[in-house]
């Protein structure tokens, strides 16, 4: 029961990030909103794994964190104007 309430609160957070990603006036706004949404989703996956009692969600969360870190740094280098 408490876990479900927590999931709903984190889901609202992801929705707010996606709204900012749609409204953001510049490209760095969208990149920042994406970075925040990714971190929130990492915690959300761990919590889903606990509520459903499935261990495999933890592995999914770890791989997701690694890949999206590389993605965020790549987007940042692209916004700077390429690797010098």
């Amino acid at each position: 029961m408490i876990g479900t309430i927590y999931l709903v609160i984190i889901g609202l957070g992801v929705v707010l990030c996606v709204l900012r990603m749609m409204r953001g006036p510049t490209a760095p706004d969208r990149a920042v909103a994406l970075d925040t949404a990714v971190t929130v989703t990492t915690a959300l996956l761990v919590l889903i794994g606990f509520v459903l009692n499935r261990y495999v969600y933890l592995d999914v969360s770890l791989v997701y964190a690694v890949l999206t870190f590389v993605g965020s740094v790549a987007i940042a280098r692209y916004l700077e104007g390429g690797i010098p």
Partner: protein
Amino acid sequence: MSVGWWVTGFGVIFLFLGSLGVYRMPDVYNRLQAGTKCTTLGAFCTILGVGILQPSWFWTCLIIAVFVLLTNPISSHALGRASCLSGVSLCEKTKVNQSEDFCKEEEDDS
């Protein structure tokens, strides 16, 4: 409620407040600050709270939490540097901008 639920709830509140800051703040840099600091603490506490609630998952949860704690500031630093170098202006209420010279120097070099 046990200790694990309290730690998880603390993290969940911080995650929601960080997302609210990303939605409400007026500027890229303010959004970056709200979205990074709050979600780093929030994700750390949430994942560690799940590890306390389910003791057989504790070490995997600790690995994920430490990874988030190490990599989130790095990616936010890269994004802040990129938005400074790509010339995003600050909001109108800003009084002091100490990074102005840095951005100009970098543009001159390239």
